[in-house]
């Protein structure tokens, strides 16, 4: 399988006044197309930072990130926003749905940036909600849904544009065991059935076991490779 993500010599530091706080140290990692990678590590190890860098919502202090042939660190803000819209699907720990919009409208949000007609958008939204098993709840608002259902809407929002890569930051971190299982099964299905490349950040070994590959971070260093 070809490598779709290449992270080369990437470091990331934050500054607090004049104090430099290193978060990632010279990271090198490659992810193949269709792979389901779990990034593990304790709090503060830099796993979310690495995910943010790969998904283009943060920029490295040093190094190069190449996604499907595009050096995303060299893109301007506007170009990077467009690149994210068409290449990355995001799943967050706390779902991050817009509370005043229905499930349908939340899933439709990323499509508003495309040139699709209303009918085409409707078709895409209904398909995405069917995949996550919530076609019958599309007109419900987030507060009318359970945590697991909200996360499934968030996954539908992430896949509605048919992105190249799905990134998930602790997608089961706020869910009970059963809901977490459902979400992990859904992600497995997206990987196996729909061939989505997935990078999932988790500190839960049980969740990480569902991935095809695991990488551990500790104090900003990528320390070992387990399969």
């Amino acid at each position, binding site marked *: 399988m070809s490598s779709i993500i290449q992270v080369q010599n990437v470091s990331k530091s934050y500054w607090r006044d004049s104090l430099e706080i290193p978060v990632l140290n010279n990271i090198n990692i490659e992810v193949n197309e269709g792979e389901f990678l779990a990034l593990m590590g304790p709090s503060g190890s830099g796993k979310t930072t690495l995910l943010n860098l790969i998904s283009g919502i943060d920029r490295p202090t040093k190094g190069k990130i190449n996604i499907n042939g595009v050096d995303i660190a060299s893109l301007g803000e506007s170009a990077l*926003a467009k690149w994210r819209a068409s290449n990355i699907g995001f799943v967050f720990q706390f779902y991050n749905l817009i509370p005043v919009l229905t499930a349908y409208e939340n899933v439709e949000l990323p499509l508003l940036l495309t040139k699709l007609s209303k009918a085409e958008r409707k078709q895409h939204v209904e398909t995405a909600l069917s995949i996550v098993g919530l076609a019958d709840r599309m007109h419900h608002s987030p507060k009318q849904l359970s945590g697991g259902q909200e996360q499934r809407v968030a996954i539908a929002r992430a896949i509605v544009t048919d992105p190249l890569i799905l990134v998930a930051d602790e997608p089961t971190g706020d869910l009970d065991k059963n809901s977490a299982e459902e979400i992990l099964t859904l992600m497995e299905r997206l990987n196996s059935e729909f061939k989505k490349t997935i990078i999932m950040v988790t500190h839960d070994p049980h969740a990480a076991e569902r991935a095809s590959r695991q990488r551990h971070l500790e104090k900003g260093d990528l320390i070992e490779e387990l399969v």
Partner: protein
Amino acid sequence: MKVLKLIFKNALRHKLRTFLTIVGIAIAVIAFGVLRTVVTAWYIGVDSAQADRLITRHSVSFIFPLPYAYMEKISQVEGVEKVTFANWFGGVYIDKNQFFARIAVNADNFFDVYTEFDISPEQLEAFKKERNACVLGEAIADQYNLKIGDVMVLEGDIYPGRWEFVVRGIYNPKTKITDASQMLFHWDYVNERLQQETPGRANDVGWYIVRIDNPDNSGAVSQRIDNLFKNSPAETKTESERAFQQGFIASTSAIITSMNIISFVIIGIILLVLGNTMIMSARERTREYAVLKTLGFSGKHLFGLILGESMLISFAGGGLGLLLTFPIVSTIEQIIPKGMFPVFQIEPVTVILAVSAAIIIGIASSIQPIYKALNTQIVDGFRFVG
């Protein structure tokens, strides 16, 4: 689902807060509208002044009279087309709370100079023929339900005694800024009685109204008139009708200035009310803006969302306030004595100012939230705890 729908939904997210903000803006706009209406009503005399009319008064003060004999001399000045005069009578009608202008005029030609007072030829003829006849402005006739042939009795104060008048005419204002709240009667009627009772006060008039042939020559004509009476016991000061009216207003300039300042302070208050709402709303949505940016929404989208919400609330409050201002001003107009503000209505400039204020406030209130939303990094937005 369009972005516009999201703007509406965002605005209604905290219904009570949005409602209170809209009501606050509406109340402020009403206060602004009423104050501006009072200020414009104050200036209505200036606005209704005619460029081809000069006012000649005593050089010391308007309250000092001028000799009646000046009329003939003024009428012979080059550039003068017609001269009439008027005299403030004062007096009390019914009681002291009933205020409107009661003026003794030269009945022969007063309406030739004040052509904006529309009176039928028959009524004017009847007025001229009868010594104790009077003409009322339409507003006064309506207010006191007076008709042709009715008798009006004034209790004199400047000119003591009981004065009886018969209504022989009712004039209508030709323009909406014409004062329709005056009572006009024969100066001759007053003067004759003064000749009998207090001869020392007779044969004086309050001021002359001079119609000139060319408004461009008003300065030169004024100078010629005043030169005529230089070094006389009653020197004159002639100025355009507009300047004369402005002189009146100048005496109350502190009140008007205060009202002007207060009306704009109100705009500042609206700005703070809406600004506070928008800052709170945007702060609460910091995480959502980060989500939208993550999904690919650009700065211009967030700009539109925040500005749209601010403008929506601003227009809702401004529109509601403006709609309510009309009946409120109309009610105030009914309550206040007709003579106090001859014309009391919302001027187009007040509407334009209120709408402009709503636009400016909508924009200004969104500046800080937009700046914050655009300059917050996505990762910082996700870390934000409201």
